[in-house]
């Protein structure tokens, strides 16, 4: 049964969303410019930071991926709020 005490860290989640978006853009750019070293460097730096932020979030606040290897009981993937329930402007 879902628990309502998921610890939402909204500023950290927004930071993760921003870095995820940079990744979306670098991937799309590199798909048509595979030799561009500048964007490749930007991509790698950003991806590194993204994974560190996600790791911090999953260890301390809530699961963002369902394959987190250190999950404990009860199963927290189901916790609310789900992304469409979050008030981003609060």
């Amino acid at each position: 049964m879902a628990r309502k005490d998921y610890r939402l860290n909204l500023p950290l989640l927004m930071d993760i969303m921003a870095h995820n978006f940079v990744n979306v853009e670098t991937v799309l750019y590199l798909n048509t410019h595979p030799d561009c070293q500048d964007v490749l460097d930007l991509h790698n730096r950003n991806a590194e930071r993204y994974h560190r932020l996600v790791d911090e979030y999953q260890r301390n606040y809530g699961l963002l991926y369902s394959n987190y290897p250190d999950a404990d009981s009860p199963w927290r993937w189901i916790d609310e709020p789900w992304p469409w329930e979050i008030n981003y402007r609060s």
Partner: protein
Amino acid sequence: MYSNLILVVKNLDNNSQNLMCKNIIYYNYHKGGFEMSEETQRMPGPDRNRMRLAHAYVPFQTFTNSYPPEEALRRGTLFPELYMPYRPGRRGN
């Protein structure tokens, strides 16, 4: 504008190994491809030596710089040259 179908090609040595994105992008695919410099990626007018009738073209983007992550997310793109916001009253552009 992004909806203009134009292409400008610079003459480059086909063996060029220049991968410096800030100056000239040489996209090497099977030793071919279209290249655009920073100055020319906005220039109008087709280069009829490379373009063919009945073919649509969009210029290749050349990387210049990028917005910081929060700003990129807010604007909807990482790249300033692709940021083209809607101005109400100017339908279609």
